[in-house]
C-alpha cells in the first residue's frame, strides 16, 4: 500500500470514528431524538451479524442461517446472566465462543454441502434453533427469558472502567456506544482477517475449492474456521441485542431475520468488507421509513427489492468477483 493510499485509509477511518462516536451523539443530544440511540444500536448489532454472513459469502457459501446463531448467542448470554448470575461482560465473549464451538460441530457435516443445498440447510438450521429453544427446559420454552438485568459496572483494581448501565438516565445511550464499539471492533477484525494470509486462502476457496485443495489448502478445516468466526459474530450480535431488549423468546430471531442478514450483505455488495454495514443501514432505515405506509409496508418493500434485482442484479456496490464458472 502506498503512503498516499494509507493516509487516505487512515483519514477515512478517522472520519468514520468521529461520525459514530462524536457527531451522532452530539446530533442526537442537539435534536433530542434519543429514540435514535435504540435504532442505531440495532443497526450496529444487525451489521455485526451480517458481517458474519458476509464472511461465509467470502468463502463462497450462501448462509441463510445466521438467525440461528444470533438466537443461540442471545440465549447463552441470557441463561448465564439470569440462571448462573454471571456478569454480562463475561457472558458476552462466552456466548460468542459457545456459538463458534457449536457451529464447528454443525458446520463439519453441513459445510460439505454446496450451493443451494447449503443455503437450504442453513435456512432449516434457523428453524432448528427456534424449535430447540421451544423444547429445552433451560430456555423456558415459549415464555422465553425476561427481565434480564442490564450490564453492570466493570471495575479493575477499584477503578470503574465502565459504569453500570443502570446509572444512566437513558439506558439506550450506553448501549449505543457499546454496540458501535463492538461493530467497529468486529469490522476492524474482519478487515484484518480478509487482508491476512487466511483471507487470501478464503478467497482462493471461493474461486475454486478443488484447485485450492490441490495447492495444499486445508479446505475442510478452513471452511469450518470461517463458519465459526461467522457464527461468533452472530452470537455476539445476538447477545448484545438481548441485553438491550432485556428479554429473549424463541421467536426473537426467525427465518425472516436470517434472510435479512443475507439481504444486507447482498445490498451492500459482496466484494467489500464494509458492505454489510452499509446494507444494514439502508435496509433498516428503508424499512422504518416505509412504516408510514402502514399495511402496504411489506408490499412496497418487497416490490422495491424485486425492482432492484431487475435493475441491479449484481448488488449496489458490486465489485465484480471473478466468475467461478457454472457447474
Amino acid at each position, binding site marked *: 500500500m502506498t503512503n498516499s493510499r494509507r493516509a487516505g485509509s487512515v483519514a477515512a477511518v478517522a472520519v468514520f470514528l468521529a461520525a459514530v462516536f462524536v457527531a451522532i451523539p452530539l446530533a442526537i443530544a442537539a435534536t433530542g431524538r434519543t429514540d435514535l440511540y435504540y435504532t442505531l444500536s440495532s443497526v450496529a448489532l444487525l451489521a455485526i451479524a451480517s458481517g458474519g454472513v458476509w464472511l461465509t459469502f467470502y468463502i463462497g457459501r*450462501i448462509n441463510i442461517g445466521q438467525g440461528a446463531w444470533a438466537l443461540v448467542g442471545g440465549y447463552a448470554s441470557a441463561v448465564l446472566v439470569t440462571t448462573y448470575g454471571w456478569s454480562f461482560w463475561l457472558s458476552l465473549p462466552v456466548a460468542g465462543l459457545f456459538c463458534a464451538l457449536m457451529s464447528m460441530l*454443525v458446520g*463439519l*457435516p*453441513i459445510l*460439505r*454441502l*454446496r*450451493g*443451494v*443445498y447449503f*443455503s*437450504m*440447510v442453513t*435456512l*432449516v*438450521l434457523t*428453524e*432448528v434453533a427456534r*424449535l*430447540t429453544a*421451544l*423444547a429445552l427446559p433451560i430456555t423456558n420454552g415459549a415464555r422465553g427469558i425476561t427481565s434480564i438485568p442490564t450490564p453492570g459496572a466493570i471495575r479493575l483494581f477499584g477503578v470503574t472502567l465502565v459504569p453500570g448501565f443502570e446509572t444512566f438516565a437513558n439506558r439506550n445511550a450506553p448501549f449505543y456506544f457499546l454496540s458501535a464499539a463492538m461493530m467497529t471492533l468486529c469490522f476492524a477484525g474482519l478487515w484484518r482477517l480478509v487482508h491476512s494470509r487466511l483471507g487470501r486462502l478464503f478467497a482462493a476457496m471461493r474461486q475454486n475449492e478443488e484447485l485450492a485443495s490441490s495447492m495444499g489448502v486445508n479446505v475442510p478445516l478452513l471452511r469450518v474456521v470461517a463458519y465459526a468466526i461467522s457464527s461468533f459474530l452472530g452470537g455476539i450480535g445476538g447477545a448484545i441485542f438481548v441485553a438491550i431488549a432485556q428479554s429473549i423468546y424463541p421467536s426473537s430471531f426467525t*427465518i425472516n431475520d436470517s*434472510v435479512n442478514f*443475507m*439481504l444486507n450483505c*447482498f445490498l451492500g455488495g459482496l466484494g467489500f468488507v464494509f458492505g454489510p454495514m452499509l446494507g444494514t443501514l439502508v435496509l433498516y432505515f428503508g424499512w422504518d421509513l416505509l412504516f408510514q405506509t402502514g*399495511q*402496504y*409496508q*411489506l*408490499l412496497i*418493500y*418487497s*416490490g422495491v*427489492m*424485486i425492482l432492484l*434485482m*431487475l435493475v441491479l*442484479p*449484481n448488488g449496489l456496490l458490486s465489485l*465484480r*468477483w471473478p*466468475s467461478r464458472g*457454472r*457447474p
Partner: protein
Amino acid sequence: MEQVIANGLYLGAQYALIALGLTLIFALMNVLNFAHGQMYVLGGFVVYEVYGLMKLPFVVALIAAAATLAVLGAVLERFLFRTVIRRSEREESTMLLAAGVAYFLDAAILLIFGEKQRGVRKIVNGVFMWDNLILPWDRILVAGLAIAFIVAFILMMQYTKPGRAMRAMAQDRTAAQLMGVPVAFYGLVGFALGAMLAGLVGGLLVTITGVNSGIGGPISIKAFMMVMIGGAGVVGGAIAGGFILGMLESVGLTVLHSYGDVTYLVIFIAMMIFLAIRPNGLMGKPWG
C-alpha cells in the same frame, strides 16, 4: 399402527406433490423457488373464493386455482426470473429475487384475503372404517387425487413431447438447446407447471386443514426439506422425499407425543445427519 401409516401416506401424497413443483422449477431453471409456499397459499385461497364463497363445484374451483397459479408462474418467469438470469452474473441472484417474490406474495395475499384462517365445507361426508382404521372419506379422496396428479405428471414427463423436452433440459440445458429444444419456452412451461402443482395442493388441502396467509413460509421450508432428502432436481427424489417426510411426521407425532412438541426438531436433526452422509440426498446429482 395402521392408522399411523395411513396418515403418513395421506400426508406424503400431498407433500410429494408440493416437492414435485419445487424440484421441477429447480431442475429446469436452477432457481430455488422461495415463493413455493406462498403459491400454495394462493391456490388455497382461490379454492376458498370459488368453492367456499361462490358455491361453484369443487372441480371448477380446483381448475381455477391451477389456472391462476399457472398464469402467475408464467408471468413471474417471463418478466422477472428470465430477465434476472440474463442480466446477473451469479446464479444466486435468482434466490434473492425468489425471496423478494415470496415477501411480495405474502404481503399481497395478506392485503387481498386478510389474516383470518379460512376453511371450506367438506367435499364428501362420512368416515371410512375398517378394523381399527378410521379415515374420513374426504381425506381419502384428496390423497387419491394427489396420487392421480402425481401419476399424470410422471406419465406426462415420460411419454409426451414437452415432457421429454423438459427432461432433456434438466439433464443438460445446452445440449437440449443444440438439439432444437426451445429452452426459453419450456422454461416458461416448467415454471408455470411447478407453480400450478403448488396451487393444486393448496386447493386440495384447503378442504381439510383450511388455509391462512401466514403458512406460506413454513410450507416452503417443508418443501425444501423434502427436496433435500430426495435430492434436488430429480422427480423420483421429490416423490420419495415427500412420502418419507409425511411418514416421519406421522410416526413422529405418535411416538414422540409424550416428549412434547419435538417431532420436527428430531426430523431436522435426523435430516442433518443424513445429509452429512449423503450430501446430495437419496438420488440427487452432485451440485456446484
